[in-house]
């Protein structure tokens, strides 16, 4: 397999939610959840997407498989633009791109056995033979570290770690190329979190899967990703190789995120405490969206919006500190 091919290419993707209210229910503005995001994922690669709550990372993940309709932009998977597909074509595509959610409790139907839940995914995607389906379900369960007999049980009979394994099994059932994992371990205890991360790493190798791994925990992102994108208020502010971004970060926001991680190891640099919280995406600050909280802010930052610039070696950053 050619591992250097771009599997997914997102170009200038936007997702706005109109807000209306007041007298006569007028259109008041847009919540710009995702506002002009571009990146690519290579075959078999994991791109980590990190940011605080409300930065648009989940919306971005959901928009890629059209659980949300994009407002503008292209989502090119292999040669097709996902943004232009009709319902029927989309169904075929979702076999190739699957999603794993944060909360396995609410993403599994409580009235279906695990076997039915996983089998349903296979049925929808055209595996009509019941015996074969049963066999596939067993294979998948065993592959994620559960047992064949678990297929007859209901979601409430499992622990949260096991439920996340089931979510992964269901995603794997259609033999996808790309998995969008939306905070897959943030609801789990540390010892279980490590088990699930290891499982996801193993599966990536075994099936040469690509992941878009969405998380707010930087150390988790570091563990699983080859490249990492940092998002702030609907935009990517920095993107680089995982080894590089946490060591030689350029954007002040990335710097603050890295310094904020509580660590049991010795801290190398002083912590940067960001004032306040993320501003409302309904009314983002002018210029650079981060300037209201930035510790290295300059006059230009509140006036001109910085573009993503390549600083060499594919290290992208959107910040005026590095020229206009």
């Amino acid at each position, binding site marked *: 397999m050619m591992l250097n091919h771009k599997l997914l290419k997102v170009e200038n993707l936007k997702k706005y939610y109109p807000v209306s209210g007041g007298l006569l229910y007028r259109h008041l503005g847009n919540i710009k959840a995702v506002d002009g995001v571009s990146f690519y994922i290579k075959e078999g690669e994991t791109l980590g997407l990190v940011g605080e709550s409300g930065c648009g990372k989940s919306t971005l993940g959901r928009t890629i498989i059209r659980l949300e309709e994009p407002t503008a932009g292209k989502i090119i998977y292999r040669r097709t633009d996902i943004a232009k597909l009709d319902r029927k074509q989309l169904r075929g595509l979702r076999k190739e791109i699957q999603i794993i959610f944060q909360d396995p409790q609410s993403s599994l139907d409580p009235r279906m056995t695990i076997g039915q839940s996983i089998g349903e995914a296979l049925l929808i995607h055209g595996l009509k033979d019941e015996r074969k389906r049963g066999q596939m379900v067993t294979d998948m369960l065993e592959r994620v570290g559960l047992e064949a007999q678990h297929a007859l049980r209901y979601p409430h009979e499992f622990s949260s770690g096991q439920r996340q394994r089931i979510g992964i099994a269901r995603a794997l059932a259609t033999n996808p190329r790309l998995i969008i994992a939306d905070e897959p371990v943030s609801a789990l205890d*540390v*010892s279980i979190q*490590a088990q699930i991360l290891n499982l996801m790493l193993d599966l990536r190798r075994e099936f040469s899967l690509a992941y878009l791994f969405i998380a707010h925990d930087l150390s988790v992102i570091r*563990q699983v990703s080859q490249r990492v994108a940092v998002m702030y208020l609907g935009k990517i502010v920095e993107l680089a190789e995982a080894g590089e971004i946490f060591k030689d970060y350029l954007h002040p926001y990335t710097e603050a995120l890295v310094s*904020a991680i*509580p660590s*049991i*190891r010795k801290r190398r640099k002083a912590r940067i*405490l960001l004032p306040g919280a993320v501003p409302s995406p309904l009314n983002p600050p002018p210029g650079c969206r981060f300037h209201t909280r930035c510790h290295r802010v300059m006059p230009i930052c509140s006036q001109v919006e910085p573009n993503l610039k390549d600083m060499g070696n594919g290290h992208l950053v959107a910040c005026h500190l590095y020229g206009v």
Partner: protein
Amino acid sequence: MKEVILSVKDLKTYFFTKRGVVRAVDGVSFDLVKGECLCLVGESGCGKTVTALSILGLIDSPPGRIVGGEIFYDSTDLTKSSAERLRHIRGKEIAMIFQDAQSALNPVFTIGDQIEEQIKLHLKVSQRRAKNRAINLLKEVGIPSPEEVASYYPHQLSGGMRQRAMIAMGLSCDPQLLIADEPTTAVDVTIKAQIIDIFRRLKESRKMSLLFITHELGIVSEIGDEIVVMYAGKVAETAPAAELLKNPKHPYTSGLIKCLPDITKEKERLESIPGTVPSLIDPPGGCLFHPRCKRAMAICRKEEPPPVVISRGHTVFCHLY
């Protein structure tokens, strides 16, 4: 001489359910030194929250009950105190901050009202003094324009601000001891750093004693003086924070430390602890951790491990030593 403000001795809190007796806390002991921060660490279901609720007499009965042990606060045994005495202590002497500020705050009262209510309940002060006090507290926890925020309802605040308001409420009657139950779990990293910073300052400026409950070892290293690691309702290991993180003795503690992803280096695989936390209705015999322990021996299945003193203040419950 160090003064102990809270001493928990062999605390046992059980829940009597239809399916059987859940031994949520089963023989937990620790001492909290005045002005220090003691961290209770463990995964979900290990009994750390139940321990905190037991201290404050907030265990729902039925089904729960403190079936044994003593909790000494200022030479009073809280387990034997009357409901009225406990009501006086709660909020005034010992305050608690909950994980989920959203559901701990009353949605139909303003932040200011809720803080003032608590002040007026415990201290005999006028309405105006109570209001001023509330505003000063909001300022102390780093809320910008506190006069304005006092008139807000909880839903108008962000998660980080709500958590600060909770802390302000906890501080409202100058408690001697503050119990914080996972106060940083539901917030973002940058906000988490701000909240930890507030606690650290409070410890300094108010010389307050803290019982800090968390599942994150990273936070413990930032704020803790003493650590008590709990597993399945029992204490696994207890030691000064730096010692425990550098020199963990219990296989569970070292497992917890090793399974943390590290931002400074790439690991091929994370070490993990196999299996899951056992059922507390039908716990395994012997050491409760033995089914998941990589270093389990024959004796671990049969006998419960006794406390072993490794060094001053460092005690581990494990047959290895």
